[in-house]
């Protein structure tokens, strides 16, 4: 697979450059995952201190994005990569943008968690939101794993999971509306809850984007904005023609 193909350049330092870029994307991914994790923990445990800290720590992720971006520009300028290498660089530049956005959404959840921690909590302790959060976390994890392994199958699974997440968000949204109609005093709290759910749903979309870049990186096929069935057919065709 491509992972091995990466190790086949005459210039050793070129290999190392590419490998380093790939590794730093995944490092950044790890930081984003931790941020999301902590934001959700803050939400669950009503830990306003942790929530605010998450919001403050987003700076690190932004810095990481800038430095990887610069590294990619440098490689493009000095090495003029083509074929698979070029795809890796392009996919990297796009992936880090999405990762940075996930970081921003985590920051948002952290800030909302800090606010929600100060008000009364429903007896379910936001169970439906935690469910959604678990799915989204798995999606982010799956997307990064797929990036690391260039695993198209896993990428497709994450793309598919996004539909479910969208439905869950929709359900929370509707439920929130009924809550607000029943008891207008809860509006502020429920709005914050809806915003958190919205942030999670957006994170799911970003994870899905990353998976699309993984498929692009592996097969050179751009599958954005095509239906899921088309994507699967395209990928199957790409695998068949041995375009790997």
């Amino acid at each position, binding site marked *: *697979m491509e*992972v*091995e193909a990466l190790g086949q350049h005459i210039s050793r330092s070129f290999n190392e450059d590419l*490998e380093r870029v*790939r*590794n730093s994307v*995944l*490092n950044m*991914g*790890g*930081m984003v*995952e*931790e941020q999301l*994790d902590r934001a959700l923990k803050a939400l669950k445990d009503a830990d306003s201190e942790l929530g605010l*800290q998450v919001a403050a720590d987003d700076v690190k992720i932004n810095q990481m994005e800038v430095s990887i971006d610069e590294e990619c520009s440098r490689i493009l300028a000095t090495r003029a990569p083509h074929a698979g290498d070029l795809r890796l660089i392009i996919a990297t530049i796009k992936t880090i943008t999405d990762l940075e956005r996930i970081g921003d959404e985590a920051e948002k959840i952290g800030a909302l968690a800090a606010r929600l921690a100060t008000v009364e909590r429903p007896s379910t302790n936001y169970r439906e939101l935690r469910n959604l959060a*678990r799915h989204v*976390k798995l999606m982010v*994890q799956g997307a*990064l*794993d797929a990036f*690391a*392994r260039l*695993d198209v199958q896993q990428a497709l699974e994450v793309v598919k999971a996004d539909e479910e997440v969208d439905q869950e968000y929709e359900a929370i949204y509707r439920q929130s509306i009924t809550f607000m109609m029943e008891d207008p005093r809860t509006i502020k709290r429920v709005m914050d809850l809806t915003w958190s759910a919205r942030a999670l749903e957006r994170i799911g979309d970003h994870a899905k984007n990353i998976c699309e870049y993984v498929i692009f990186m592996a097969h050179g096929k751009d599958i954005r904005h095509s239906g899921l069935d088309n994507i699967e057919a395209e990928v199957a065709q790409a695998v068949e023609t041995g375009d790997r």
Partner: protein
Amino acid sequence: MPNRWISQLLFLGAGLAFTLLLGASFGNTGWWLAGALALYLANTLRNLYILDNVLRRGKPIPPETRGLWAEIFAGIEKLKSKSRARKRRYHDLLREVRESTGALHDAGIILNSESEIQWFNPAATRLVGLDPATDIGQRIGNLLRHPDFMSYLENPQGEAIMIPSPKDDRGQLAVQIIPYGKDQRLAIIRDVTREVLLQRTRSDFVANASHELRSPLTVIGGYLDALAEDEDLSESWQAPISEMERQAERMTRILRDLIELTRLESAARDAPHEFVDVIKMLKLIEGEFIGKKGVPTIRVHLETDVALLGSEPELHSIFYNLVHNAVRFTPSGGEVECWWKLRDEGVVFSVRDTGIGISEGMIPRITERFFRVDPGRSRDSGGTGLGLAIVKHALQRHEATLSIESQIDEGSVFTCEFPKERVAARRRAVHVAI
């Protein structure tokens, strides 16, 4: 020379002699000789062909070879069977190793110098989701991405670290990396979810119990206070009541320390970086002990005026506990000296006393909770048995270290070293001209 070589040479000599004889009787000696050599060459070539077949394609050795060649073939056969036996042995050994590592509950992952995965056991698949089909050669940090793990991977020193499990939402894993051989590293990953849960349950229990005990104790203390001041109290009750009061006060102190200790233990994050004026704090602590009855002389040497970045109450309890400890174990004639000085690596607070000292075997244990060097004595002197445990945990939260030197009957030196990152220049009052 072995027999077979002699017979081979003899056979060659005889053949040569026979050819020469033929040449002598029929003429054309040269042609006869050439013919005989050609025959010999053909035979050698044929045997070489067989040898090639045997070595490269693993064909069986034909039984009709004779003489020296038969010996050589037999030798090869022997070597082959020997290596087959060795191979089988290695194979068996390998299988056993594989089976035993496969049966392990802990994940074992072998990494090279680039932190790329070389091998892992089935438990690694179960615990962290590595896939044997795709993940060999993958950098482990790409799959186990937790930032704490990443920094540990770069600098694997000290104790195992804890990371949340990537497979299970509530799972906790302990990771330890052990270098071995030439640039190889072994990562051992253990599922510690249950241990972490137990630990949490325990500290929750201690915290809850302490909180619950505090209010009844306050009530008891209040009544004892009132009783002690009651003028109608009969003489015979005065001593018991004041003793009860003292003990109630001690219990309150123990509970306070227990709550403080649990709080320090459960706070996973580092202490905040707030500006703390150490000079002022040390002067206050000094003032608390100076001039008290039965207390040794105290001298505080402030060799620098730097301040610390940390948590004020925690730093206070570090310094207070250390000084209090020194005072408690030093007779009133002795002396206690404290230093606050700047070093290259950071800043140091040390306390030297001329007290009873601690034997060497006890030193590693004295920061344990409720550990007492001399049980009878320290209880009388009003300690809770938790002071040094609190000091240790509070220091850890400031990335600082505690070292202890001691000599029995001569005294002890307790030294805290704070790293550079925690040192702050002292704030000075700024006068603004109007």
